[in-house]
Every structure is written in C-alpha cells, then in structure tokens.
C-alpha cells in the first residue's frame, strides 16, 4: 500500500535529516569529490597540450570524475546502509513495524527509496562542477554523456544500496553489517580489476557480472539495454532477498 510505504520513506528521510552519519557522509563525499575534480581538470588540461586536436578533454575529465564518484560511493555507502535494518532490530522497533498492518515489501522499499534519495541529494551538488566544465569548454561535452553518466552512477548507487540493505537485514550488529558490506563492495571492485581483458568463458562471465564494468559504458555516454537490465535486476534481486530475509526473522528465534 502506497501510504505505508510513504510513512516508512518519510520516517527514514526524517532520520537522515537529524542523523550526524548522513551529514558526515555527504560532507566527506562532497569534499573529496571537489578535491579530485580540481586535480583531474588540472592534469587533463596539462596532458591535452601536445595531444592531437581531436583529444576530447571535457569527456576525459567527466569520465575520470564519474569513476571517482563511483569509487567514493563504494567507500561511503556502507555507512548509510549498515543501520537500515540492523538498528531497527537492535532497538526493538522492528517488532513495532512487523506487528503493524504493513507489508515487508513496503518497509524494504520505503527504506531503499529513502537511501536512494539521500544518494541523489549527495550527487546533486557535484552536477555544479559539471556545469562548470560545460561553460568553460568548447566544444562542450555532449549533454547525452553527462546525463548517461549520472543515470549510470544513480543505478550503480542503487545496486550498492540494495546489496547494503540486504546485508543490514542479516544482523543486529551495525558494525558487522558495515564491515561486511564494505568487504563485499571491495570484492566487486576487485572482480572487475581481476577480470579485465580476460578471454576465458569464466573471465567473460565475471566481467559481465561486474557492477563496475557496466558503469563504464554509461560514462562513455552509452545507455546500453544490457547495462540497464543488469542494474535493475541486480537491485530487484537484492530487494527481494531483503524482503525474504525480513520475513524470515519471524521464523528465527528472536
């Protein structure tokens, strides 16, 4: 039911609004991303001297910058998701939610959408940097690349958040949830490095399964159906697992 979902969403947003964790995460994200943006612009501008005339500096900066945003999300998102369910269980408020006339899917989706909103809010100021290059380059990077890049990072973030909420639903301990989520994120990252340019069938499969591989297409301005399908099914799959995990709490010894 939409109303219950919204009630959870609203509660979560209120929680972020007063929670120091959300502020610290957003501040760190913006600070580090601003620093690296500066660095990239300077480096790539320097490189571009002595390059052939068709060297696309704005696109280079954009790609490097979006890659950085993804990496930063990898580091910071565990802090957003670790408490999603673990804290509710620890506080006993899960008992309130689960004895109210509200379905598990509403709880999970409400929380997921709220964390995705926080992620979007966090990304929003970085768009200012992109606007900056937009106005200071000629020819400017095509709008399509910018939009595809941001859609990509939003989907990528969605995957991290869905996976993170699933991990958080497994334990009562926030720190365990945080560490486990972070470890898994790193593994996703490592899988990508390890399977780069692999030619065996296994390598190719791992390559396809890598969350980051699909992201790179988006940063090149390509909105590929396989990428979209991959990300959306990744998100749906982990939301489904989270719902099952929450439901199974009823069968475990409390």
């Amino acid at each position, binding site marked *: 039911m939409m109303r219950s979902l919204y009630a*959870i969403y609203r509660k979560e947003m209120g929680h972020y609004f007063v929670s120091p964790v959300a502020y610290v995460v957003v501040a760190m994200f913006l600070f580090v991303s601003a620093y690296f943006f500066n660095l990239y612009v300077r480096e790539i501008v320097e490189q571009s001297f002595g390059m052939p005339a068709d060297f696309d500096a704005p696109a280079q900066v954009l790609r490097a910058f979006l890659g950085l945003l993804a990496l930063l999300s990898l580091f910071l998102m565990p802090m957003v998701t670790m408490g999603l369910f673990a804290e509710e269980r620890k506080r006993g*408020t899960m008992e309130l939610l689960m004895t109210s006339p509200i379905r598990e899917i509403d709880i999970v989706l409400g929380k997921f959408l709220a964390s995705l909103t926080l992620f979007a809010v966090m990304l929003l100021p970085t768009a200012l940097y992109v606007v900056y290059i937009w106005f200071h380059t000629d020819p400017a990077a095509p709008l399509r690349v910018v939009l595809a890049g941001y859609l990509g990072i939003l989907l990528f973030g969605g995957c991290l958040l869905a996976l993170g909420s699933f991990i958080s639903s497994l334990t009562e301990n926030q720190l365990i949830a945080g560490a486990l989520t972070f470890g898994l994120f790193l593994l996703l990252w490592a899988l990508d490095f390890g399977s780069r340019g692999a030619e065996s069938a296994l390598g190719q499969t791992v390559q396809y399964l890598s969350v980051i591989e699909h992201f790179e297409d988006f940063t090149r301005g390509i909105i590929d159906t396989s990428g979209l399908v991959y990300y959306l099914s990744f998100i749906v799959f982990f939301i489904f697992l989270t719902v099952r995990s929450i439901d199974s709490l009823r*069968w475990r010894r409390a």
Partner: protein
Amino acid sequence: MIEVQDLTKAYGPVTAVDHVSFSVQEGEILGFLGPNGAGKTTTMRILTGYLPATSGTARIAGFDVTSDSLAARRHLGYLPEVPPLYPDMSVEGYLDFVLRIKNVPPDKRRSRVADAMEKTNLSDKGPELIKRLSRGYKQRVGLAQALVHDPLVIFLDEPTVGLDPKQIIEVRHLIKNLAGTHTIILSTHILPEVSMTCDRVVIINKGKIAAIDTPQNLTTERKGAQRIFIEAQAPEKPLQELLVQISGAAVEIHPARTSGRVTATMEAAAGKDIRSLVAAKIVEKGWSLFELRGVSLSLEDIFLQLTTDDAEHAEASNEPEKTK
C-alpha cells in the same frame, strides 16, 4: 474478541508454548501470569503476528493471525517488553508515525495524538525528543503508541516495568479505564497487579496453562484448601506433634523471638473446619491460646503452588504427557 485454540510454539526441541487455549470477551482485561520464561512473551508475539505458531490457531476480532495477518494486525496495539521507540523522534512525531503505519486517515491523526498523550500524561512532552525522556516517560510513550490508533485489542507485555510506584498506580488506573471499550491482554509477573486490574487470570508455567479463572475464585476456591494460623504459649515440639496429629498435613512452626510464644501455620484438608478442634486440644493440654484464625490463600500462594507443583511432578514422574 480473541480466540486461541491449541496454540503451540516449538523452537527446535524446546516447546515454549504448549497447546494453549483460551478466549477473551470484548472489553475484558485478561492477565497473563507466570514466572520468567513461562511463555508469556512468546504467546503475545504469536497473537500480535510477530511470530508464527507451530500449530494451533488464534483469531483476533475474527481474523486469523496467520492466514489473515494484515487484517488482524489492523485491530491491535502492542507494547512489547522493550518499548519500540525511535530516540531521534519527538513524542508527537513518533505517535504520528505510528498512526501512519497503522493506516489511520490523515484528518484523524492530530486528535488521536493529542488524545493518547493526554491519556498517558504526556501532554506537556509533545515536542520533546524521546532520547531525552526518563525511563518512566519512555514507558509511557510506549503505552501511548499501543493505544494511539484506538485498536480493538491491546497487548501489554509487562507494562509497569521501570516505573515508580506513583506511575505504576497511574498506569493501572489507565488500563482499568481502557477496559470496556478495548479488550486488553497484559502480562506480568507482579501478582498484585493482576488482582488489581484483571477480570480474569491465565497462569502459565512452562508453556502450559496451569489455571484460568477470576482472581477472586482463584484465591477463595482453590482446591478448597484451608490454612490456619495459630499463636499460642506452648512448647514447640509437643505443639507441632499435636497439630500434625490433627491435620495429618504439614505444619510450619516458628518460635517467637520474645515472650516465649509460638506461631504456627497449618494446612487443613478441604471440607471440614478444624478450628474448634484445634482450640479445644490446645486448651486441654493446658497451654494458652492467643490467636487462631483461618487464612485464605493469597494469589502468591496459589501461584507458587501451581508453578512449583508442576515442576516437582515433572521431575518426579518424568512422564512426557501431562494434563493441561
């Protein structure tokens, strides 16, 4: 309003709730009484839809708690052992959130919040953050949460834990006032609470129902046993021998610290009043009798009798099947 039939919950080899059956009428207050770990909380969790039962059925307002869980949950309020609070929310904000997840329409929310805060004496705490409240206030917010949406059935798991004596009286008073319009099940291990607030008592021990009755019936009619208190000036040993001879049952005897008097309590078999016989025998021996009175069993005694009897039997006979 509540129908429970053969409810059983097993955690692996441990049976936490064992074929429990009872029913509660509309507007009634039912007390769950039992030692810690008797299965009170588990039973409540099943009835509120938090845990599924292993077997048996339970209905709330006509809705099965397993097959029609959402409908059943729409009609209940629940205060768990630990009040389910969000420390970062204000009291008002929290109650508003509870109303939202209980599907109360927007136009009724404001008045319901005010109403619940008034009933639980929280009216001046509305904007305060829950984390800044004292333990007693937190417990009251928990209570407000259970009744804010005006549910048909309210479950209260140990509602007076952590409150000071004055607050305990207030809460009991509040529960009394809620009866009639709400059906209430409350669990407690505090005996006076049950006799003060409940219409009927379910005594649970080791997952089984040991007795269901009104507090009055439990205290006066229990097995028709009679207990007699005696104070006399008499030598300890001979008095004990005499009393044992009369009653044929156990006699507890305590020499008084001063005055050389002796007090004794004895159980007498049901049916006959042996007080005059005891008096005559004592006087016959030439001892002086100071006091002789019948003592009705308190709820404590019955509780202990029921719960310890059970344990002894189980250990002595070691048979798996026992009466409910």
